[in-house]
């Protein structure tokens, strides 16, 4: 995957993140994590709840700094927010006091793009996610799926070379989720950006990704990486029926299930 000589899009080496808990003790969320993502590669990350997947994304985005180890994006040491990075959050993070259009223009405006140009780009992306008719609405007037599409447009309008997605569709119903996945693949196909997509849905991970990374029970580190050798372009509903898909599902689940069980058993002892 990785061209020799070219810098990988994302490179985590020995990344460790510890948080100070309210009681003053140190809690290790991510431990000694090594992961490389090639340019234009789609990587899905699966792991038990609370193992440290979101934390890993915040390290790559520059929102948090690793306690130990090194994070590089296109060969550059990550210090602070990198303008090449886009982030779609798990919870709703669109601005409720801005209209749909204004939410999508926010990024370019923050970056100093003139208003007219920002609006033009935003309208283009709103059309691509199918929300052109809703630009004057406020987020509370939209369905959950539409709000997620606003978030996608808001992120894509900045042309990120790296796209971090933290369980972006987990709050949506199953049908909407499949539609959103297909739409995401469409949007991504044109951009050539690298994607790290965190999910708890193994179906979604295999259907979308080039590689699926399985994380250990917390503190997270990479347990195993599976290459998804299914041809593209894919559609979620169709790819799910292929024998190779089922085979991969079984393999990955065998690896992931063990970690989920460890987490669950631990949770019985003290609060997860």
């Amino acid at each position, binding site marked *: 995957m990785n061209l020799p000589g070219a810098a990988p899009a994302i490179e985590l080496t020995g990344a460790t993140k510890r948080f100070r808990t309210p009681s003053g003790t140190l809690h290790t969320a991510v431990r000694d994590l090594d992961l490389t993502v090639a340019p234009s590669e789609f990587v899905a990350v699966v792991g038990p709840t609370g193992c440290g997947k979101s934390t890993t994304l915040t390290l790559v985005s520059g929102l948090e700094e690793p306690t130990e180890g090194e994070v590089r994006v296109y060969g550059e040491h990550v210090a602070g927010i990198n303008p090449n990075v886009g982030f779609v*959050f798990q919870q709703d993070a669109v601005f*409720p*006091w801005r*209209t749909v259009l204004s939410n999508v223009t*926010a990024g370019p405006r923050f970056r100093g793009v003139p208003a007219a140009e920002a609006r033009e780009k935003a309208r283009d992306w709103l059309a691509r996610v199918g929300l052109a008719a809703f630009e004057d609405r406020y987020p509370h007037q939209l369905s959950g799926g539409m709000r997620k599409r606003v978030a996608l447009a*808001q992120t894509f309008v900045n042309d990120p070379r790296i796209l971090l997605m933290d369980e972006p569709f987990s709050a949506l119903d199953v049908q909407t989720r499949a539609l959103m996945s297909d739409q995401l693949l469409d949007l991504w196909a044109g951009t050539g950006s690298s994607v790290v997509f965190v999910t708890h849905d193994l179906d979604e991970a295999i259907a979308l990704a080039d590689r699926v990374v399985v994380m250990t029970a917390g503190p997270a580190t990479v347990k195993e990486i599976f290459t998804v050798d299914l041809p593209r372009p894919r559609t979620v509903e169709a790819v799910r029926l292929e024998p190779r898909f089922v085979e991969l599902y079984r393999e990955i689940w065998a690896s992931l299930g063990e970690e989920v069980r460890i987490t669950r058993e631990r949770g019985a002892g003290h609060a997860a």
Partner: protein
Amino acid sequence: MPLETAPAPTPATVTRTEVRERAARNRRLRVLGARAGVLVAFLGLWEICARQKIIDPFNFSQPSRIWDQIWQWTTHGTAQGSLGEQIGYTLYEALTGWVLGVVGGVLLGIALGRIRFLADVFGPYIKVLNAIPRIVLAPIFLIWFGLGPASKVASAVVLVFFPVFFNAFQGAREVDRNLVANARILGAGNRKVTLQVVIPAATSWIFTSLHVSFGFALIGAIVGEYIGATKGLGLMVAAAQGTFNAAGVYAAMTILAVVALLTEGLLTFAEKRLFRWKPADSGDGR
């Protein structure tokens, strides 16, 4: 809203919605009627008790006398000048104090809410100042700033500042961390995060305090006037009290209440305009 065209009404749905609408209207009328009834009963009882000397009309006055007093002030003016002028004075002092207190409270609240260092340095002082019963500062302001409006404005400011400050501070502290993270990823620096995320997110907190604090501003102005002034509703209360004119005290209080209610209504109107982005909390049967 523009997408919702009503489906072709069938007779059954028409009558059912009509029935429901009529029921709602009837309920509203009943509530309004009962409200008016309570007021009339209260005033009537008061009037009768005073006339029958069950309560002493010299101390407790009676609605008809209060009304006469208001009417006399309206038509012939008060001892200090026309009634409108007195109301204008009090409103001017209250509004000036309110604006100054709100601006100061919001600015400091947001600044301390955003900048940890400032919060750590000033936090204890603000707590100490807040512990002082601020209404007792009114006589001190009278000594400092004299009989004119300045001393009343100062009383209003100290009463308004603290609730607004604490709400703005809390609002700035409790901003959804996801929104801040999203704005930073999208490219906002510290200044833009404050102006375009923290302040809008804190406005609902701040507005809650604006309602209460306008009442406080009026209290500050009135108490200031009551202690010493040349004009204003508070002075009218003091003057009426000085001549044992109970009806005058009640009449001034009534005028004050009306003024306070009207300004409250204006504030609610402004709030509705400002918070169009919020889901209406009274979802009408959706």
